[in-house]
């Protein structure tokens, strides 16, 4: 899917490096050339790079290893999941390189990420298309039995990269976004991003994690009770005095742009539902009225 023709600069790079292809193995650090740093997170740094095996541009996600920990379990789970997921809308994991001090994931290269893309198109996102892509992406997860492994983690798990087809521009717009993912949290995450794409601002923007984050969420969704979340009081760490009781609010009160998009508020609030089993499923979400303006062919994206 990636084409060199849309950037002269990158073409230069390819021309400048003339390598012999024979004998360049997968899984070796020497098979890839680091170009420039793209971004740096708390546990990994992403570089733009080029593969000596097929001369394609790649994204190199370099995870620093702590000697005492070994390979972090989040990285192992991420690699395992990405290797199983082959879908047009999920970025390809080409290769994995292990050295004593680093673990590197070699991904196909994407030109922009969702945050940048939203910044470039204030109010101009065609939400139906974006949402269909992200909902379809959760399909393979549901169907291949990832549930047990995902359920034991409450941790941020995966970097998902979506390529989204925007029919208005008639071109492929590969996007990249980062989702916190345990499967139960997946739909809430997708819901958060959905609201953010409409509103242009994060819905539960907290400066610190933990309690402040919870407060922000309860302020919108209301504090869950045994009525709205059966079994709540039996959950570990449940503390009835932690938060004062709050009633849920309508999303359009907090996000004024919500009311401008037909059926968006209903879909968003069903994705954000706190009680995991009360949340809308991927299948039902795809059939939601919000997507009714879409041409049916869009559902047949491989």
């Amino acid at each position, binding site marked *: 899917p990636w084409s060199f023709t849309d950037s002269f600069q990158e073409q230069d790079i390819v021309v400048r490096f003339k390598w012999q292809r024979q004998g360049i193995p997968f899984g070796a650090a020497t098979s890839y050339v680091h170009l420039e740093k793209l971004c740096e997170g708390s546990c990994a740094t992403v570089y733009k790079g080029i593969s000596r095996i097929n001369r394609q541009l790649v994204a190199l996600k370099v995870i620093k290893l702590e000697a005492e920990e070994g390979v972090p379990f989040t990285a192992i789970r991420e*690699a395992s999941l990405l*290797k199983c997921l082959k879908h047009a809308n999920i970025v390809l994991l080409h290769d994995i390189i292990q050295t004593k001090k680093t673990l590197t994931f070699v991904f196909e290269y994407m030109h922009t990420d969702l945050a940048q893309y939203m910044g470039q198109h204030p109010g101009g996102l065609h939400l139906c298309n974006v949402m269909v892509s992200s909902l379809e992406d959760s399909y393979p997860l549901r169907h291949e039995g990832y549930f047990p492994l995902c359920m034991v983690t409450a941790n941020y798990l995966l970097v998902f990269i979506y390529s989204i087809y925007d029919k208005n521009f008639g071109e492929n717009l590969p996007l990249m976004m980062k989702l916190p993912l345990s499967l139960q949290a997946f739909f809430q995450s997708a819901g958060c991003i959905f609201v953010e794409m409409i509103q242009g601002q994060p819905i539960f923007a907290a400066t610190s994690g933990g309690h402040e984050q919870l407060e922000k969420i309860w302020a919108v969704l209301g504090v869950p009770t045994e009525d709205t979340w059966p079994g709540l009081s039996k959950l570990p760490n449940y503390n009835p005095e932690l938060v004062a009781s709050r009633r849920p609010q309508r999303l359009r009160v907090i996000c004024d742009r919500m009311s401008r998009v037909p059926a968006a508020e209903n879909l968003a609030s069903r994705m954000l539902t706190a009680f995991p089993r009360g949340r809308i499923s991927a299948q039902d979400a795809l059939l939601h009225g919000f997507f009714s303006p879409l041409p049916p062919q869009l559902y047949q994206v491989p």
Partner: protein
Amino acid sequence: VSPGQLTKKYSSCSTIFIDDSTVSQPNLRSTIKCIALPINLWLNQILLFCRDSDRSLDIFDEKSHPLTREEVPDDYYKHDPDHKHIYRFVRTLFSAAQLTAECAIVTLVYLERLLTYAEIDICPSNWKRIVLGAILLASKVWDDQAVWNVDYCQILKDITVEDMNEMERHFLELLQFNINVPASVYAKYYFDLRSLADDNNLSFLLEPLSKERAQKLE
């Protein structure tokens, strides 16, 4: 005429004999006892059919990567461990690292996957390190309170964390990072273990079902 001692307890209309192990909450002690069985079986098979198996890998060999400071005897590859020996080794690791029974079942899945993917045989010279590697990986990706590699150096005093890291790298590469265990595979291993235990007269502890135990099992 006395019916004689029944060797097995059977449920009747008035009493149900049941153990306290379920697929979602297996009993730890019984499960660990059980997972020693297939390891033992694999070893016996190898010893029966190809005494001089060379389908091994250096990284798992105890001679080149000793687990203790004691001298490894020259004929180390000939001593096949019995069920008790394997059980004790696994139990030590599980109790010291406080691992769960689910983790034991996942360990077995990874063990069998490694032997298949890497096309190696488990044998007296490598079984300890292969089992250790599988436990290390299973505990890491399965338990929420992930055990770090350095924690195993506290349990097996003479190993280095560098050695553990190197073994983990090999293990992951050989598994091609496929650590996913679908629910169906997990359940299959659980029930296979139960019938294997039955065949080997190593049944899970059966006790009459009482109201309290029924509630606990729910």
